[in-house]
């Protein structure tokens, strides 16, 4: 009846990390949705006159990069502790770079990006507690 304490501990940790990825995603989604409500930006998109030209290739690359935090919601729940830790740290660093370097300086974007970075640093911190000796075997 009683589950191994270590397994319970590691499952709690995985759930917290996975939930943090969900929070990061909602911040990213809303940063983008609210940007679409900016009249000047919307006009630029319609006329194709954005400062950086939004090409098919650029959007494809963005889709790939955005897939990383999306898939981490799932992977952080199913990967074994060792791989899980590595995947979380790598994905967090890539995503931090993406939201800061690829971002804009509009107030609402800065607000969302700040929270994203805080959550990503928390993910790295939590991931460090995922080790093979903690529930690596089932």
């Amino acid at each position: 009846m009683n589950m191994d304490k270590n397994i319970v501990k590691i499952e709690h940790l995985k759930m917290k990390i996975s939930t943090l990825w969900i929070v990061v995603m909602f911040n990213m989604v809303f940063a983008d949705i609210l940007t679409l409500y900016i009249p000047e930006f919307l006009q630029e998109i319609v006329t194709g006159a954005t400062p950086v030209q939004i090409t098919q290739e650029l959007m494809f690359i963005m889709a790939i990069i955005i897939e990383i935090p999306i898939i981490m919601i799932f992977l952080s729940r199913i990967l074994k502790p060792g791989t899980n830790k590595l995947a979380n740290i790598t994905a967090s660093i890539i995503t931090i770079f993406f939201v800061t370097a690829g971002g804009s300086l509009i107030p609402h974007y800065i607000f969302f990006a700040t929270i994203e970075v805080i959550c990503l640093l928390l993910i790295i911190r939590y991931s460090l507690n995922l080790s093979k000796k903690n529930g690596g075997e089932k």
Partner: protein
Amino acid sequence: MNTFKQLFGKEYVKVKLSLLWLFVMLNYIYADILTLMDSSVLKEILSGVIGAGIQVTPGFLLAGAILMEIPIAMIILSLLLKYKINRWANIIAGIIKTLAVFASMFVGTPALYYIFFGIIEIFTTLYIVKIAWTWQNSGESKK
């Protein structure tokens, strides 16, 4: 006994609240995405004035961002916070979001899809308030 309760024991209320915030967030997001597909609203956004004379300024969007951060943050805070502060955070956030959605339904003439999402959102946040209000401390484990 299901695995859910077995894994989370006395903390399962926290998981339930977190999932309800996740559920209500997806409703908020789709209400906003469908709004962008609504040609009449899209034309208003392009003209720079939406609803009954609301100017879309960076400050207005920042206020919207802060208001939206409340339910986003509650998804994780419901899991992390200790019982007492967790309970109050849920009650306060639930009331703020219920009132905000209720008020937003009176901006201009709301579309049918917006009312639909709005009603689900209001019921969900009220349910969150109810769960938090009646939540008894059952001696949460010390971390």
